[in-house]
């Protein structure tokens, strides 16, 4: 990863968008490009750090007010431009988001609404038939992940120590649940949904593929091809299986979610 | 958390299943489901460890003052006091009677 690269998310955005058309004019923390993935037309979107962010609590790659609404904007653009097309552009969300932005302005100006803008836009795009693939290359935390990635039809993650998916950072989670960080880590080891690592997350059945990339900050050509191929496979799979999120319900550690749905349908 | 099971002879026939309370701090939920056997089976899950003796005393006392209903009583307890627990148990039995 060279010095001009802002983050791992930025690095993978660059790798996947070589030759693509870069969208300009939006806030610097949202990168957008239109190109293709092994021939499949796609819009690529990443959230990246912007040290000079107008909203300082969102300077490190967090999803803040501008990021949330900008995601909404750039996703809506795709929906709008493909409105009359039956072949829908794919959307590739490159996910490396340490958290949502925590701050006074954020709450007061409605960050929840900004993230609803983003999540809602992705969901609308998916329901409109756009294949959406989330590529988790780093952190996918909490509200940030809900806004950028969790509405994807398929999630692909790298099997790597720095890849982390969770509802809350360890320190805050410990404080809120009145546990020590050590106690939290101990519990996380035996309770898969509590875990911070990607292997345990994989047991929940939420991932389409877990890819081994030796060094995600400096990938080999073969690895880059593998990632592209996997994304392309995912798009094919989506087109075959439809727009909903049912594919996430197969995990053995998410079995109860299936039972609840079956019973709810039976009683409905 | 501790799981406690108790059984008492019972004679009262209550018609309905019933639920009272919520699992919130200092409170509990109590669920009663009637059956035909002449006993009251009690299953308690409580956040307070080492409280079996107190629950036994509570139901011994309850049994000495009331005829117990035939059925299963399940309690999810979040550190309620015996006073609150008794109130919820009375409530669930009353609802099972009239619901």
């Amino acid at each position, binding site marked *: 990863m060279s010095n001009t690269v802002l983050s791992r998310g930025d690095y993978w955005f660059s790798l996947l968008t070589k030759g693509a058309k870069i969208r300009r004019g939006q806030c610097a923390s949202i990168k957008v490009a239109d190109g293709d993935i092994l021939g499949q037309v796609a819009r690529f979107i990443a959230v990246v750090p912007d040290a000079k962010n107008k909203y300082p609590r969102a300077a490190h790659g967090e999803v803040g007010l501008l990021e949330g609404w900008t995601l909404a904007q750039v996703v809506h653009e795709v929906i709008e431009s493909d409105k009359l097309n039956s072949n829908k552009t794919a959307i590739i969300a490159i996910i490396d988001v340490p958290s949502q932005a925590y701050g006074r302005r954020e709450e007061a100006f409605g960050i929840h609404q900004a993230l609803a803008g983003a999540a809602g836009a992705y969901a609308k795009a998916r329901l409109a038939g756009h294949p959406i693939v989330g590529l988790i290359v780093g952190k996918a935390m909490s509200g940030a992940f809900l806004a950028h990635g969790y509405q994807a039809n398929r999630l692909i993650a790298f099997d790597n120590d720095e890849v982390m998916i969770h509802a809350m950072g360890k320190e805050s989670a410990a404080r809120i649940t009145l546990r020590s960080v050590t106690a939290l880590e101990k519990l996380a080891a035996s309770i898969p949904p509590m875990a911070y690592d990607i292997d345990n997350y994989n047991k929940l059945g939420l991932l389409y593929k877990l890819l081994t990339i030796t060094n995600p900050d400096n990938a080999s050509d073969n690895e880059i091809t593998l990632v592209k191929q996997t994304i392309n496979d995912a798009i094919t799979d989506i087109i075959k299986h439809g727009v909903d999120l049912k594919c996430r319900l197969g995990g053995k550690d998410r079995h109860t979610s299936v039972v609840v749905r079956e019973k709810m349908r039976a009683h409905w | 958390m501790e799981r406690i099971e108790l059984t008492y002879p019972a004679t009262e026939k209550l018609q309905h299943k019933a639920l009272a309370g919520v699992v919130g701090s200092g409170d509990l939920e109590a669920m009663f489901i009637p059956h035909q056997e002449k006993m009251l089976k009690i299953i308690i899950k409580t956040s307070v460890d080492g409280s079996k003796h107190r629950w036994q005393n509570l139901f011994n006392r309850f049994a000495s003052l009331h005829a117990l209903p035939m059925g299963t009583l399940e309690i999810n307890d979040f550190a309620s*006091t*015996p*006073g*609150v627990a*008794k*109130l919820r148990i009375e*409530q669930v039995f009353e609802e099972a009677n009239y619901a």
Partner: protein
Amino acid sequence: MLANLKSNRAWDSRLNEKKRRCNAVNKLANGKVLATDSFVEALEKLIVAGDRVVLEGNNQKQADFLARKLSQVDPNIIHNLHMLMPSIGLPEHLDIFEKGIAKKLDFSFSGTQSLRISQLLADHILEIGAIHTYIELYARLFVDLIPNVALVAAYKADRNGNLYTGPSTEDTPSIVEATAFKNGIVIAQVNELVDDEADLPRVDIPASWVDFVVVADKPFFIEPLFTRDPRLIKPIHVLMGMMAIKGIYAKHQVKSLNHGIGFNTAAIELLLPTYGEQLGLKGKICQHWALNPHPTLIPAIECGWVETVHCFGGELGMEKYMAARPDIFFTGHDGSMRSNRTLCQLAGQYGVDMFVGSTLQVDGLGNSSTVTHGRLSGFGGAPNMGHDPHGRRHATSAWLDMMQSQNPVDRGHKLVVQMVETFQAGAKPTFVEQLDAVEVGKESDMPIAPVMIYGDDITHVLTEEGIAYLYQAKSLEERRAMVAAVAGITDIGLGVDSKRVAQFRKEGKVAFPQDLGIQPTQAQRSLLAANSIADLVEWSDGLYDPPARFKSW
């Protein structure tokens, strides 16, 4: 003659000493007004090592600026003070001891600082004279604990030293009187200085009793100690409140009373306009109160239950409401309420028929205490209200109702009610074989155990299980059995035979809710006249302005 026995001592040494000290601060004062920034220096001249210093502070208002400044004086100049403090509620109160400025302490109540007092005592950093009730301590200010210096708090002063203490007058008159008229020095911290008496709403303490005033760097600290959020009242409090109203208030026709702090009594206050109304009790009970301005009393006042309320102190947020209800509260010509702790304690002791309070521990005979291991919390005012004053001579129907013998010189008895759940949160039994206070007393070398209310003063114990009418007990043994009958499944409660309990119920010595015609399952929060602080504001037509920490909008 006996001329040789006549002392030739000087008779005005205290007066001369006072003059000397006052002269010493001439340069730091503008008339009676001491400068805020050089105030520590002034204190070092006005107080002398070994002085008795009374520092105002109680359940509610605190002379916190003066406490802070006293903790900043040089211990080489001022040390060995003997502090007289109604309440120890601030960290600075104990810093004074830790820094060696003071050594001995006579006090009445210590809420938040009770753990630290225990530690300082164990480390011999402070000595305790005695733990008092409020009026007991004020009484001694006129006998053997006469202060050299009084440090008090007021809202406003004029340049002559007239003080406006308003709704928070509280202890100030008693403390100032004991000091001023025995040639001690009276220093008042004020939130605001005005030029002229005409700029004060009214004069609560006349200027001639006050030697110095100082403008505090921020308004005095005041704790809204008597505000209970109705949201936190639980069905079990409602049940106990219903039992109290029907089984005690109505049964004995209690017209005048005092309530302690707590959710049980808050529930009663909020049940009067609803459950009390259903029982047709309006105008028959609860008309006259010696009570802090509890916000939860607003609905009962608005519904016409309450005739009068005299207050120990103020309560944050209640000022405008009280001013708008001068028929109910004691207010000055300016419209604002005037409290007086000493007089209200006396009212609560002699003037009312009933005290209802709560506690942490009750023993088999009904003795109770809030002192538990490691905590020297003191008593405050509860024991004054929570006892039968033998000096009482006027009769009321409730008082006479407690008479049990046909003895021609028998007298009535004040109703003293302990209202407790059988277990505290965390499964701690309220009823215990021996109060922790007994051990604590021994560990702290106290001559007597710190008992809050003695069992022989208690007429009723009310728990969620039932009411024990202890005034009917024929013997100590029977009293013990009656307490046990309502002590639920605590060890004390398990110690009584169920046949005996049945007999008590038959004789009316013990009543379970069912015996009173109360179904426990009727006890729901919807019976409360207000469910939230917002409801109380609405009841008050917007006059009640709750402190920020109680607002959720």
